[in-house]
């Protein structure tokens, strides 16, 4: 059964590109464009991992990440954070809030596929330790 990725990103063309390359790599990709209702989508979709943009309309990716880690159901959900802001303080904040991977835009397609495979690829057990 294909691993499910929830992509929370508000740029339509970036959504299409990432969805295409991950689908081609065998993942099922769901998307959501609004930060305010993102947690509802997470709870409804129950993805295997999340790719989360930092700057979203309604609620920032950092706030969503904080909520993910505060919820016992999603506290261990792998999160790859994407941001256009590559300053060290943003990276430190993302890691401190519990992001598994922090990537800056623009990214390479090969790198994002590699990171997703590393987090939820076939070799990664579905039940991650707490």
């Amino acid at each position: 059964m294909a691993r499910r990725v929830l992509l929370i990103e508000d740029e339509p063309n970036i959504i299409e590109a990432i969805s295409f390359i991950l689908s081609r790599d065998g993942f099922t990709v769901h998307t959501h464009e609004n930060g305010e209702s993102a947690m509802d989508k997470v709870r409804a979709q129950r993805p295997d991992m999340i790719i989360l943009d930092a700057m979203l309309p309604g609620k920032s990716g950092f706030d969503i990440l904080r909520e993910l880690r505060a919820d016992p159901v999603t506290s261990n959900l792998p999160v790859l954070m994407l941001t256009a802001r590559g300053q060290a303080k943003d990276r430190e904040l993302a890691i401190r809030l519990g992001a598994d991977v922090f990537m800056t835009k623009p990214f390479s397609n090969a790198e994002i596929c590699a990171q997703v495979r590393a987090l939820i690829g076939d070799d990664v057990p579905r039940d991650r330790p707490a």
Partner: protein
Amino acid sequence: MDRTGSRIRARRLDAKIAQRDLAQTVGISASYLNLIEHDRRRIGGKLLSQIAAALGLDQALLAEGADAGLVGRMRAAAGVADAQMVEAPQTADLAARYPGWARLIVAQADQIAALNQRAQMLEDRITHDPALATALHGVISAVTSIQSTAAILTGDTKVDADWQARFHRNIFEDATRLAQTSAALIAYFDAPANGAPVSLSPLEEMEQALFQTGFHRAAQERGGKSAAPDDPPLGPGAAGLLADYDARYSADTAALPLATFVPAAKAVGYDPLRLSAQMGRPLAQVMRRLASLPGDVDAPPLGLVICDAAGVVRLLKSVPGLELSRAGLCPLWPVFTALGQPGRAVAGPVVLPGAPEVRLTCHAIADVAAHPDGPHMPPLIEATMLLRPDDGPDDGPAVAAPIPVGAGCRLCPRAQCPARREPAVVSLEPSL
């Protein structure tokens, strides 16, 4: 103590004129002149005029000494610079001896202060301007999409025709957006030849012009009706707004001329409520006059905000050291509270976050005017707020608790504020 004699002596020595020669020139004895110079004899009238003429000086300069306002501004300039460098006790003497140099010192100090403020505004804008941050984010997003999409199209894996068409369209859309945003950013950073920063709107352009003179309009104070000759060139939109500002300014000047307004304001500690009651003028008009006092008046720094019924800021004069952004001003400021109770003054302290906290006292009122097209149209409402930094611990009667306000939701660190309408540019929870 009248120190006219001492000033005569100082000016005579500067001019390298012997005492006996000056005495002979004006027709008095050297010994009498000596008594005058040591302030043991008063002098005035014709003799003072003759001595001033012999020394090549203005009689008033000898009789009254240096302009107290000029001396005050020189001391203020020394206070900003390294105070150890200046001979503070000789400030008045310097101003009296060399008023031209003294005015140059003051003018240069004012210019330095204005340049520092402008540099700080630009730096803050680049760092914290939400519109700029959004534009830069748009550039990065467009570049990301183009790079990722192009990599798909040029990769080793074949892409079917439908996807190729979609991706080609996406690249075109992102490239177009990138070009437009890049052009706007270049215009944002591209300053004109005179070094003045580019404004993003006619309102900001007008305010930058007003900022040069502290929102004071000397030409209108003298009864002028048009823009002053030393006003910077403005675009047509900004010029029209400035003309409207000057028209109201002239009306305010006629109702509250400086000659009577300044002493009255000083007598009540620049309290706009007391001043309005005392002078029988509308509170908003009094606040506008207070916020546009000339720089040589020894008044506290005063800021001014004017907004319309929609809460859109139409005029913004920040308090020195506190730069407010007109975009997305915090809804808890008293100027917006006043919109909800037209005709009733709102007054009280506010506090902004920071270390240390910034505390101000605000007065605000909303005025209602009938729409010129008739009673069937909604009235025109305008709110005015005066801001004044607190002077420090007050041993007087207890005042109301300060209202916590911010510079705008995008910049404010008060994450739990019930009035927050959008997330901050960065999450700034103090617990992290």
